[in-house]
């Protein structure tokens, strides 16, 4: 059974991240997942100082609040004219630094780092189950990330047009009367919720990777947003399945293997994509010269 739960969790993370990741890649904010993975440090320290416990619920709450503040600040700075990469960089390094100061001031004598208290490990997902009325209803991660996926699917389907125009051409979106800022904040909120929920269950590398690599791969393979989202979900799920069996073969980290497979798929797309692929473009260039 554990194989099933791990692959399912991987696929759910891949789908959730694939959906929001496409919008992030289009908006040149792909590294926001990595930013959140660092900036939540002050959140967990403050949550620990208030609650006095390293219980994952408090850690998750602290992380979620700071995650939202992170994306809010990034969006705010970006709208005030700071380049997107610079605003991501400024916000997450500054917040992470606050976290480092807090750790060194208040919690020197306790093992409080992100790896220990927040980031989960996908290998342990099958055992971290929820019970309702004595009945085991499956791993917590599957429900948590499943809910995040549901939320993403509902919101993105309901406002697909608005999200799309806002990502490609904010000026035009504003001209036709779409509240651009609102949709930006909504998307960022969605990113924050789904990443923090996934960090807690599967760790940072899987989330950050799935947020960037499959969407970037899909970007090479199609020009249409709806197809890009679908392709990135499919690639993400395929990476989870292949990655899991790669990890089994090598007896290695599962999350690491999944992202390696995703990276391998990206490389294939980069070389062989019919439209953007390096090889096909070389062939085309030769044809044009001949």
């Amino acid at each position, binding site marked *: 059974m554990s194989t*099933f739960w791990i692959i399912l969790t991987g696929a759910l993370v891949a789908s959730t991240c694939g959906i929001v990741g496409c919008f992030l890649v289009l908006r040149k904010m792909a590294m926001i997942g990595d930013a959140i993975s660092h900036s939540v440090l002050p959140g967990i320290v403050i949550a620990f100082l208030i609650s006095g416990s390293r219980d994952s619920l408090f850690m998750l709450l602290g992380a979620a609040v700071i995650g939202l503040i992170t994306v809010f600040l990034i969006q705010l700075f970006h709208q005030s004219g700071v380049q997107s990469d610079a605003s991501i960089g400024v916000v997450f390094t500054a917040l992470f630094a606050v976290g480092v100061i807090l750790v060194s001031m208040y919690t020197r004598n306790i093992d409080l780092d992100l790896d220990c208290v927040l980031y989960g490990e996908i290998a*342990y997902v099958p*055992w*971290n*189950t929820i019970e309702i009325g004595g009945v085991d209803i499956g791993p917590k991660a599957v429900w948590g990330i499943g809910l995040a996926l549901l939320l993403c699917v509902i919101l993105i*389907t309901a406002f697909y047009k608005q999200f799309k125009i806002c990502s490609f051409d904010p000026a035009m979106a504003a001209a036709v009367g779409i509240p651009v800022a609102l949709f930006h904040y909504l998307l960022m909120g969605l990113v924050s919720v789904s990443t923090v929920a996934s960090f807690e269950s599967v760790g940072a590398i899987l989330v950050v990777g799935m947020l960037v690599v499959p969407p970037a791969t899909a970007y090479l393979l199609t020009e249409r947003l709806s197809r890009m989202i679908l392709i990135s979900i499919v690639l993400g799920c395929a990476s989870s*399945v292949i990655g899991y069996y790669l990890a089994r073969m090598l007896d290695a980290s599962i999350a*690491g*293997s999944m992202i390696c497979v995703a990276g391998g798929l990206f490389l294939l797309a980069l070389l062989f994509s019919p439209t953007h692929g390096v090889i096909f473009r070389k062939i085309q260039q030769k044809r044009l010269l001949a």
Partner: protein
Amino acid sequence: MPVAKPLFIILAFAVLAVLTACGNDKAATGEEKTIKVTTTIGMITDVVERIGGEYAEVTGLMRAGVDPHLYKASEGDINKLDKADIIFYNGLHLEGKMVEILEKMAKDKPTVAVSEKIDRSLLRTGAQIGLDTEFDPHIWFNVQLWMKAAESIRDALAEFDPAHAEQYATNAEAYLNELRQLDAEVAEKIKTIPEQSRVLVTAHDAFGYFGDAYGMKVMGLQGMSTASEAGTKDVTDLRDFLIDNKIKAVFIESSVPRKAIDAVIQGAKEKGHELKVGGELFSDAMGEEGTPEGTYIGMVRHNADTIVGALK
């Protein structure tokens, strides 16, 4: 946007996974005389091997030199945890988030925190913030505390496998005797260091129990977590202390990078105090398997000899 398609694909993969998973589970049934034990850190693995003897098949998750704070699980670990009849771990948050999982697994199979039975008043407290007191998890540095951990292991094995309870008790008695001798031996050795030189300086704060048990002042450069970094003031404070007290050596650890300790040595040198690296101590992980330091007793002996050799 069509949503049905990706969901269908996920479902298809899921069905595939279930089929393969079922195939794996069948292979495990068969006649077994020994009980399968899975352990986290090497120190526990060693004790369980000694007490379990021929009746326990012990698999350790963390290999030599692995820092339990920063341990990354691999795919094989799932099987090791899944197939185990009983699991031993240190507890007190040493294994990080894994402890939560092990506590949850307790409803399927016995999972035993070897630190659990130890009287909390014997433990060193870390942070006193909030309601819960956090305890220092590095209990194996005090051999007497580790004997209590060994007793918990003996009791848990006997309870789980009563047919061999007597053998476990015999093995444990022999092992506990060795530990008792080890404890006396370490105490004896440390006493040979001149009193004002009984200062143990290491990179991270793991040796508190050692200091308490054998009468040494312990100073760590970093906090408890191997992930936190030493501040500038920590380095200068420690340097000044070492110069003032004419301490001859500081120590590096097998599972922690030596960078911070090198900074202190450099700093002392600039002030004209010759400080040397007293040797490598095993802190959060034991030595390679097959070497004397690859066992708990060998590791403690190595640490004591290294400390005495450098400070005497």
